[in-house]
């Protein structure tokens, strides 16, 4: 009897381990770096949701078994760099998806590139993410357009559609994203015949903007351009209205968060911002994604979800098509991406690894964001 038990146990062990070896797919580890807490946590939550959704969908038909490792960067460049080093040296990931914001993505891209690990960001729009001093970082890609384009479109929109002649720009002097957008907005607005009457900066931890807003108020600008993340934008917008400034508020993709309306309230209503996609977009791929996302997470996916989904899917596609699931092969394939039909539109990577795609302009209404127009590159 005892013997029989032994044998059957042994058989069981053989079945379990030996068997699984035959059926199991090869395990591939990929890392996600995203801000799950801190000042831009809604970006990170959307990104994580979309990332998980993409991985789950891949699991149904993909060649490999994906083991995702999710880390929190708190929208802090140092945290992001630490997370990247841990993912690369300790967890030995094949690729990194993320980070969401440019200021974290820039140091992480340096680390990924130096370690020859592919990195794809969904939403980091600063030019320095994929290049440094004009030199391409060959391992870094992104699923979005870059700030020169976004700032330019914002300025053109303010001049032509909103028909305004004077603008004030308020930006965060310590944030690459905010600074980049502000610069490109200013140069395009001036070239287009408008005047930038005030160009004022503030610092990351500031909450009192009364000094600069009162100063800007004396110039009576028609447009106030605030290229920052939703938390700051909401605070600034409130103080702008409390100081009696009437100008139209314009901003960038950092505005896209349900928190913008929650904190900003009436102060932000009537503002416009450039974005990557609108949930109102009529397109089978986008509609399918929005439907599934809504069913799973009970909210309409924002830009951060859509772009992170695209970024993850682009990577998974390259992984499946690669001859071997290693970093070199994947990077080779990523470089040749052409006309990929993503949730946020058709995209191809240009020679810098930046996606070439159109800008969407949204308006802030009481109930949410409304689609205004699309501008093609």
């Amino acid at each position: 009897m005892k013997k029989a038990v032994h044998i059957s146990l042994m058989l069981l062990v053989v079945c379990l381990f030996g068997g699984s070896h035959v059926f199991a797919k090869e395990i591939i580890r990929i890392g996600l770096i995203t801000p799950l807490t801190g000042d831009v946590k809604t970006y990170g939550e959307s990104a994580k949701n979309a990332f998980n959704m993409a991985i789950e969908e891949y699991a149904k038909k993909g060649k490999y078994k994906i083991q995702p490792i999710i880390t929190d960067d708190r929208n802090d460049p140092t945290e992001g760099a630490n997370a990247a080093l841990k993912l690369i040296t300790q967890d030995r990931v094949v690729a990194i998806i993320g980070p969401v914001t440019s200021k974290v993505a820039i140091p992480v891209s340096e680390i990924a590139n130096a370690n020859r690990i592919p990195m794809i960001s969904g939403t980091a729009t600063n030019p320095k993410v994929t290049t440094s001093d004009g030199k391409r970082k060959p391992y870094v890609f992104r699923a979005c357009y870059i700030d020169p384009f976004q700032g330019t479109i914002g300025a053109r929109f303010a001049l032509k559609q909103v028909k305004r002649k004077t603008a004030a720009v308020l930006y965060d002097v310590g944030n690459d994203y905010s600074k980049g957008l502000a610069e490109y907005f200013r140069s395009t607005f001036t070239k287009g015949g408008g005047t930038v009457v005030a160009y004022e900066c503030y610092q990351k931890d500031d909450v009192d903007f009364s000094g600069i807003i009162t100063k800007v108020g004396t110039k009576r600008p028609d447009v106030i351009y605030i290229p920052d993340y939703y938390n700051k934008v909401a605070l600034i917008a409130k103080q702008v209205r409390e100081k009696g400034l009437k100008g139209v508020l314009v901003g960038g993709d950092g505005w896209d968060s349900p928190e913008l309306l929650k904190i900003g309230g009436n102060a932000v209503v009537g503002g416009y911002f450039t974005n990557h996609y609108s949930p109102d977009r009529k397109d089978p791929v986008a509609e399918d994604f929005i439907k599934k996302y809504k069913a799973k997470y009970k909210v309409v996916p924002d830009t951060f979800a859509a772009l992170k989904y695209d970024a993850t899917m682009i990577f998974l596609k390259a992984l499946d098509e690669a001859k071997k699931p290693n970093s070199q092969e994947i990077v080779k394939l990523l470089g040749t991406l052409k006309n990929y039909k993503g949730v946020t539109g058709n995209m191809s990577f240009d020679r810098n690894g930046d996606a070439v795609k159109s800008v969407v302009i949204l308006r802030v209404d009481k109930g949410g964001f409304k689609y205004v127009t699309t501008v093609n590159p």
Partner: protein
Amino acid sequence: METISYLLQQCVNGLQLGAVYALIALGYTMVYGVLRLINFAHGDIFMLGAFIAYYLISKFDIPIYLVFAITMVCTAAAGYIIEKVAYKPLRNAPRISLLITAVGVSLFLEYFLSLKFLFTANYIGFPRPFEVQVYDLSLFTVTNIQLIIFAVTAVSLVLLFLLIYKTKYGKAMRAVSYDQEVAALMGINIDATISLTFIVGAALAGVGGILYSIAYPQINVFMGIMPGIKSFIAAVLGGIGIIHGAVLGGLVIGMSEVFVSGFLSSTFRDGVIFIILFLVLLLKPSGIFGKRIEKV
């Protein structure tokens, strides 16, 4: 005319910021007065006040004066507990141990409260208990929020001055700050007096926290760091340990912040504040109102 109204408007802005700094600076200066301790956790008491008010306003529908009262009681209790748990056992230890403990308490409050099941590390919108109204006084505008800040600060200051200069407890505080050992010989209960100082300072920080979050309606667990540092500078500027010095220091810091951002640029703001501090300390090492030279 335009310039005058611009100047006046910036003055109002500066007063708003300065009033809050003054409230926090009082706590630093009072504690320094009795214990010769820079209580780094004070900025976090300020944050605690903002969060307690946030929960009171968003979870319970209670009138604003009750929000102030309950918050003050809670932060006062927190100040009392911190003193009893962290500082009292070190009463006879070297001063550096006390200072390091203060830094530790500050970090503990920030990171413990930022845990997921407590306040979280997120930025939270602070629900204003009333709508903003802007009054146009032709030369400048003032909001009801600013009026409330001025009024609450003024009332708190008057009460504090009454407490310190007109009551027996205030006299005890002044005596302890003058010379702890001699005060003890005169029959003053040192421990009780120190506790009272912490309680009063923390209650004021709680008020500061509410006013600050009503003015700038966004809170997070690290919100106390910058105002804390600025208020500490304010206290040093006015002469640390001196009550009216802290008030003046707060107003000077608030005004110069706003004026530097308004006339120069935000990037120069902190630099200018430190230059002011540097110059004052160079000319008058014990601060604007500082008279006596520290005992050795």
